[in-house]
């Protein structure tokens, strides 16, 4: 079983050290080290979380707000490293969570397609090859040569989704079946997402939406206050989660 694991999380803990003032100024830092007055508050977002995700499997992660789901997402997508423990990932992880985060308002849609693409780890050759497809999918047409700051929210979302949807997912992390834009585009983007899910070699769904988790996942990890409460077949765990909530 371990031979097939694409993601394995072993006793991963994440500790946020929070200072009373959100970011320290130099003066405060000097005072504190002089006076040895430690106003450091430790917040454990995750404590010794362990689980495995195998090839071909789809795993749901459920829990209340603030349970540590987002932090876990950061670990799985390798944006953050655990304070203790280990997260091993075998394959390319694509997280469809925050779309369009790197958009530069002053640059055109065209420039942003390339910028966002290389941020996501594609090489330029691939982006050039996919460029037409992305513009077509986004339905932006001539607006692609206008600065992104002139776009409406809908246009931004459409562009962001179209770029992200070019991924060839190995391990896919999603938080909902994103539908962006108007009715027509929503349907299109949902279909594209289902395509991505079916192409992916492993799937992680981090969601509040029980129907979505039940629909997509075979196994579920339930976390609360940073700890794994239960892990097992979807229906069983979701029942328990609902009963408790």
């Amino acid at each position, binding site marked *: 079983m371990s031979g097939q694991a694409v993601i394995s999380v072993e006793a991963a803990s994440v500790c946020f050290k929070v200072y009373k003032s959100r*970011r*320290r100024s*130099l003066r405060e830092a000097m005072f504190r080290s002089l006076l040895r007055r430690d106003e450091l508050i430790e917040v454990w977002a995750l404590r010794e979380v362990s689980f495995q995700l195998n090839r071909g499997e789809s795993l749901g992660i459920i829990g209340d707000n603030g349970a540590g789901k987002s932090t876990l997402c950061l670990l799985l997508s390798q944006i953050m490293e655990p304070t203790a423990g280990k997260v091993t990932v075998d394959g390319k992880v694509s997280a469809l969570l925050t779309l369009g*985060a790197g958009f530069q308002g*002053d640059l055109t849609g065209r420039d942003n397609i390339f*910028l966002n693409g290389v941020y996501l780890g594609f*090489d330029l050759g691939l982006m050039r090859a996919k460029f037409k497809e992305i513009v077509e999918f986004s339905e932006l047409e001539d607006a692609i040569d206008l600065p992104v700051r002139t776009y409406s929210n809908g246009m931004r979302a459409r562009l962001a989704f179209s770029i992200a949807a070019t991924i060839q997912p190995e391990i896919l992390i999603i938080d909902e079946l994103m539908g962006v834009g108007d009715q027509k585009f929503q349907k299109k983007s949902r279909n594209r997402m289902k395509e991505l899910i079916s192409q992916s070699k492993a799937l992680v769904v981090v969601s509040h939406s029980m129907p979505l988790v039940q629909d997509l996942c075979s196994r579920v990890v339930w976390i609360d206050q940073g700890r794994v409460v239960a892990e097992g077949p979807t229906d069983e765990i979701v029942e328990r989660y609902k009963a408790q909530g």
Partner: protein
Amino acid sequence: MQSSIKNLISRRHLLRILVSSNLKRQNKNTTLGYLWWLLDPILMTGVYYLLVAVLFRRGDGNSPYLMYLLLGLLSYKAFSGSLAQSVSMLQNQGAIIKAISFPKAVLPISMVLSNAVYFIVALLVAMGMGIYYGPEWGSWPNWYYLMLPLVISFQVMFTVGLALIVATLGVFFKDTANILGHLLRMWYFFSPGLYSLDKIPDHLLPYFRLNPFCELMTAYRDIMIFGRMPTVFDLGYSFITGVVSLLFGYWVFRRYEGRLVQKL
């Protein structure tokens, strides 16, 4: 994703696009647009020329003072601009750092490289002026110009190292940007930007020469004004400070990189 050498190389396309985006964005919203690439150094030199040569009647009698000023200013601006932009770079890009996994060192490095491009274009303009106005301005292009890429790369190494440190500090201490502004201004006045090194008292000179901008500026001027080979000491010292700064900056950045996401 950590900024290991391997990851940085695998993300070289990101670095390339970031550099061109920085350059495109810089003057996008101004009426004169790319013209600022020329206007900026020219106006800056004009201001200092007015101050030093016209009002104070000082200057270096032995060399074309305008060109002298221009070379010092351009090289220093490439350095100070890089640092001033790097200090807030990680905060400004916080949203993407928290959304996508990539080696974060590309952000300050791209800033330094786009400033270097800006610098090289300005040097070409200075060269053009030298050719147009003839020997009173500077040397005609000669074989020693081939040394320029070398000197520029030493300066870039030095700048990248400090940019990585400053970018890290900027995340952990909010007031780094304030302090940095003053430090950079002071640093310029301790570099032979406005004056020449023979104005410095002999017993202080060794201390002044610790600042690699002494050697860098002298090297640029040797090549472009006097048409001679920079001294081995100038080249060697700027190379060594460049390498030391690069290695130390990279080490600092790698050490704190893992904690950046939490702080943003």
